[in-house]
């Protein structure tokens, strides 16, 4: 069994965990981060993409709102290129009566959230599709964020500071020593999800940043942590109906926020308390509710082309709380297990939201330093991650680069303008086990055709690239490059090409293109079934003809292979069902 010794072990490769790894590495600690799937596979990769101004919580949860606005300002500096400066409207529709708008404005003033009531004419000029019956509009500094890119950029910064990142490494159990009253967590035993190989990681401090899975991790050391998993369903519209974040100016509820992020607009969300963070079926009423509520912001939205529905799960935490997840606090929750459970060497960080991930990391590492008896100041707030020099993301960015550099002939995913070079670089730089990993890296298959034209191309490219390459070398993959080259640039930049001289780290572990193909099609299909009508149905009919009639993919050999993605779409699927059999219709 392999053994790694480190100062800080971080469990969870979402925004929080990667933020902790970044923070800890900048403070000079040796850091290892483990993630059981791909980076952002959990809640981080399934949220609607809002960079909160704090406006949403300003009346209900002022503490949370203050955290948001402070972090909003910091992230605009540290993760500039991961953010689109869309601005945000809080709109009052005829249904939103009462004194909430005035309380909202007063609360914004009190908490320091810049908020200006703007003339309706101006609002409708900027967002012509807005409900014309909206009677007041407040503007706040909301934005939209690319949580995939931001997490990778954070990881890149952490790697440059020496952190080791092990993805597809699942925690088997926490390691503990000592008896009752004097127990301590000394690390964790992890298993490579692909090879099955186990590794023991010994750490002075273990940080549980596994979000909705935090209870399961803590339970392996017999520590009770009751996360309140709040499922949120989101629905994406085929293109950006709005270019500003649109919030309803009322107490936060279901379906009251519309976020323009990349090429789509996302309406969200529901908040349903669930029991298992892996099992997130999307119920028809949830989709209907999103569309009905969406119509109140942009009349006709429910008739627009709906691209996809998916669910994420909030890792809410409130000590002793037993109510609805909608009313649970959004504030971050740091569990000091030494004080709470008498177990040292172990902290759980949960709650919060994407916008506050940096603060969550800082709070956690401040506590870790205190417990380790060292004084090292947090540096993340003043340390931009690689890539910020580009400035804010803008919608036309990819098109602009493809046009300027004449890359039209290299497009693999035409909808999201993903070039062959982007895919190859992603596969070289990240352990790529499934095509879904590439989706998170470069947005492969996220556009209108939902993988119809790019899945077979990408599977072919990976198969081609795999030939003649050695097996994956984990050590090599984990070692940061010698230079400070911005290695995640390929994620959003079609023109970026590290070329033949770039760090070529072959670390792919699956060389079965049929499996890559089938898994990805099934994964895409899963998000389509809840919204399969109208124009998207036409699209799927074409995709069906391509894959089933032309390629006969439901009879591709070998049909009993599985990957971590297979588990994912088989396990968690449409209402009521528990597992699809392979070979079912796509």
């Amino acid at each position, binding site marked *: 069994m392999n053994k790694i010794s480190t100062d800080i072990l971080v469990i969870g490769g979402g925004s929080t965990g990667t933020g902790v790894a970044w923070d800890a590495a900048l403070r000079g600690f040796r850091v290892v981060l483990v993630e059981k799937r791909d980076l952002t596979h959990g809640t981080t990769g399934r949220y609607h993409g809002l960079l909160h101004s704090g406006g949403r919580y300003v009346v209900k949860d002022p503490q949370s709102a203050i955290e948001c606005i402070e972090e909003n300002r910091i992230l605009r500096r540290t993760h500039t290129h991961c953010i689109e400066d869309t601005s945000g409207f809080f709109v009052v529709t005829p249904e939103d009566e009462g004194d909430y708008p005035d309380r909202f404005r007063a609360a914004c003033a009190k908490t320091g959230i810049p908020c200006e009531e703007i003339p309706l004419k101006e609002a409708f*000029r*900027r967002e*012509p*599709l807005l409900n014309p019956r909206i009677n007041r509009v407040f503007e706040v500094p909301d934005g939209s964020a690319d949580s995939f890119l931001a997490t990778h950029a954070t990881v890149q910064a952490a790697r440059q500071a020496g952190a080791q990142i092990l993805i597809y490494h699942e925690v088997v159990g926490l390691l503990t020593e000592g008896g009752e009253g004097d127990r301590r967590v000394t690390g964790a035993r992890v298993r490579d999800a692909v090879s099955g190989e186990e590794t023991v990681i010994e750490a002075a401090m273990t940080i549980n940043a596994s979000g909705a899975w935090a209870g399961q991790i803590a339970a392996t050391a017999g520590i009770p942590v009751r996360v309140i998993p709040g499922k949120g369903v989101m629905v994406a519209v*085929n*293109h*950006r109906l709005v*270019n500003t974040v649109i919030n309803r100016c009322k107490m936060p509820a279901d379906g009251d926020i519309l976020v323009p992020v990349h*090429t789509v607009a996302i309406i969200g969300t529901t908040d349903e308390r669930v029991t298992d963070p892996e099992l997130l079926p999307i119920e028809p009423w949830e989709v209907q509710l999103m569309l009905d509520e969406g119509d109140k912001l942009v009349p*006709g939205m429910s008739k*627009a*082309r709906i691209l996809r529905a998916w669910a994420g799960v909030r890792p809410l935490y409130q000590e002793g709380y037993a109510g609805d997840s909608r009313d649970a606090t959004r504030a971050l929750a740091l569990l000091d297990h030494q004080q709470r459970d008498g177990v040292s060497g172990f902290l759980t960080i949960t709650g919060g939201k994407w916008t506050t991930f940096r603060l969550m990391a800082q709070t956690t590492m401040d506590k870790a330093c205190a417990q380790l008896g060292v004084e090292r100041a947090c540096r993340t707030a003043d340390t931009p991650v690689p890539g910020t020099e580009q400035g804010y993301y*803008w*919608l*036309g*960015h*990819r*098109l*602009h680069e493809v*046009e*300027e550099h004449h890359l*039209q*002939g290299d*497009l693999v995913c*035409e*909808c999201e*303008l993903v070039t062959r070079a982007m895919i190859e670089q992603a596969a070289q730089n990240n352990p790529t086990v499934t095509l879904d990993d590439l989706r998170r890296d470069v947005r492969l298959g996220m*556009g*209108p*055709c939902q993988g*119809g*034209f790019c899945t077979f191309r990408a599977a072919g490219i990976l198969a081609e690239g795999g030939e003649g390459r050695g097996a994956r070398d984990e050590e090599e993959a984990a070692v940061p490059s010698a230079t400070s080259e911005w290695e995640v640039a390929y994620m959003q930049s079609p023109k970026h090409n590290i070329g033949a001289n770039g760090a070529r780290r072959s670390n792919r572990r699956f060389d079965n293109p049929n499996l890559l193909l089938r898994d990805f099609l099934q994964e895409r299909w899963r998000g389509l079934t809840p919204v399969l009508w109208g*124009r998207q149905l*036409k*699209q799927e009919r*074409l995709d069906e003809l391509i894959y089933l009639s032309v390629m006969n993919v439901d009879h591709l050999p070998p049909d009993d292979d599985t990957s971590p993605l297979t588990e994912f779409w088989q396990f968690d699927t449409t209402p009521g069902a528990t597992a699809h059999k392979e070979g079912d219709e796509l």
Partner: protein
Amino acid sequence: MAPISWHSVDLSLDECIKCNICTSYCPVSAVTDLFPGPKYVGPQAQRFRDPDQATSPDHSVDYCSGCRVCNEVCPTGVKIAELNARARAEIVADKGLPLRNRLLGRNELLGKLGSFAPPLANFGLHNPLSRFLAEKVMRIAREAPLPTWSTTGTFRDWLKRTAKERRKSDKKVVYYHGCATMYYEPFIGKAAVAVMEHNGFEVIVPEQNCCGLPLLSNGEFGAARNYHRGNVGKLAGFARAGLPIVGTSTSCTLTLKEEAPELLDMDDESSVQLKMATWDIFEWLRELHEAGDLRTDFRTVDLKLPYHAPCQMRAHRIGKPALEIMALIPGLEIAESHARCCGIAGTYGYKVEKYQIAMDVGAELFDFVAAQGDGVTYSACDSETCRWQLEHGTDLPSRHPIEILAAAYGLYDLDRRDLILA
């Protein structure tokens, strides 16, 4: 740029199922890699556009010729050509417009200017030195088939001169001649007037502006709006009075019918009146014929005639009415072209960087004409710039079907391009 609405062309991007049929039919992307195809620059790129963006991300959409073949073949109804026209307008709004495109967009103004002294203007425009300079300075291709100003006066001069001879009747029709007939080819207007009068109509020719299409296709939406407003002001009254407004230029009539109101989001009552009353002249003649009111006292016309329905005609979605009417003419043997496009697409093929593309696109049509054999003396096409391109690409004179029809009535000499006076 007018704001988007649910009815706007912008939202038709949602209809795209990425099937690539448009790209496989696009005559431009078939001959050059500079144009990545209608799907790419249309519904696909549209998801990355935001009119409020500081800069336009586009370049290659400028290579769309606007022929609208993509719209015609799209199985789901994406308004691709209009998406492209709007994207080009964004580039223009953002980066400005070269003087060349400003000039090429201003057909009406050029026509007027040249008509002060047509021989001088023709010499000025067509001598090798000025074409060389125009290419170097203005980037207007020196070989491109530019028109010549009429040396026998404008169409309106002729109308004035012959005012007393013009037929009066209770049956009235309004004629929209467009700029080319006015300044370059008055004989097209003469043939049209002769045909309509022969069928018992009094032809009203009101004051009118350029339809604005050259401006629309060069991305100058503001100036195009002014022209269209002018036309609505001058013509909507006739439409409201129930008179048909017919035109001999398929692209002008298409602009009044559809392009201008749609691209410019002009859906006021008067624009709609004008739009509903506008006809292609052969569309209107076919209607007459179907009602039994078209005179068929044709002479035999012994010609083998390759006929190309221009892209803009196909965009009318009215079939090929000129073909149907010409089929009534005894002796006339028509060979119907199925080529996608002649390549010129208005002012597209005049531009030095696009001239060769336009010629390559047109090759399919030129080959078709050549394949008709030696006995062919003319080709025919409804659109002026397409005829000029056809003549340039085939060395064969080209005629408007209305000239053929006028000749069949014995009113017109196809060779001299003038009326035969009784």
